């Protein structure tokens, strides 16, 4: 994953960073925006940011729905902007 400040990539591009933290593939998980209620698969949500962190913005209202940041000693997951996340079991 490598993000260019102003131009987003798709949430799918952050799959590797997610797998550093979670056992399940979160790109197929669905996320509900706390602001506008829009539901989207994480792989489809636009991601902004730098190499250390990913900022997810809702397609419905453009608000930040989730933030995942890698620091030298761990990971921050900020989900203030999300009402719910559902990760499906594989297979």
């Amino acid at each position, binding site marked *: 994953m490598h993000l260019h400040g102003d131009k987003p990539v*798709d949430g799918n591009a952050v799959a590797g960073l997610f797998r550093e933290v979670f056992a399940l593939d979160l790109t197929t998980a669905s996320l509900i925006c706390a602001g506008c209620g829009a539901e989207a698969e994480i792989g489809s949500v636009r991601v902004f940011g730098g190499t250390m962190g990913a900022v997810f913005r809702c397609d419905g209202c453009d608000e930040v729905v989730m933030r995942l940041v890698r620091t030298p000693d761990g990971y921050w997951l900020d989900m203030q902007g999300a009402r719910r996340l559902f990760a499906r079991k594989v297979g």
Partner: protein
Amino acid sequence: MPVTDAPRLQWQTAEVREIVEETPRVRTIILDVPSWHGHKAGQHIDVRLTADDGYQAQRSYSIASAPESDHLMLSVERIEEGEVSPYLAGEARMGDKFELRGPIGGYFVWTIATGGPLFLIAGGSGVAPLMAMLRHRAAQKSTIPATLLFSSRTYDDIIYRAEMERLAAADPHLKIVHTLTRGQPAGWTGPSRRIDSEMLVSEGFAPDAKPHIYICGPTALVESSARALLALGHDRALIKTERFGPTGL
């Protein structure tokens, strides 16, 4: 054998087995990866290069090979000022080793079970994961109707051109349309402009056919194609995008 949890995603060392010059700016590198548990068409890997001073650069690359293939293939376009692509698409030699992890990204995936029709839209190296889908479809001898609309700069920039010709000639259910945005050979009868709404209508499937749509390549091409398809009435849930970044076509 004891039952174990899915293996954690680990960095592992891949070795360059073979290199294919696809176009003046794109190379396919065929890799030996010691511990590979298979992938789905459309997934990618992360590559990590480490300099002598310890500095690391990490980038994502789509898997271009079919799940049925014995080897892992990446097709990389050289970005002259880049940190990682000049190595992969230029300096890397047979026997070189570098780190990768994957497969990752279950969202941008197509399998036979996903069904069709399948409408693929690519710009430049964005064709890599879509080629994995077409190779998978061919390996499974699937008759699911499929169309690839592929934008390249010039005729010589068409990645996988010969293989595409072979695939399409042998398969009445597969259509491949090239558009050339920056120069056309004499006698070119195909489209010669960027992908637009009119082209998506004339070459693609109607919204009523409920095609599964995958768009991949430079951010601008991906976004304009997705917007046009939505305006044409295609279902947002059937449109999957993979933006590669700011590549200019």
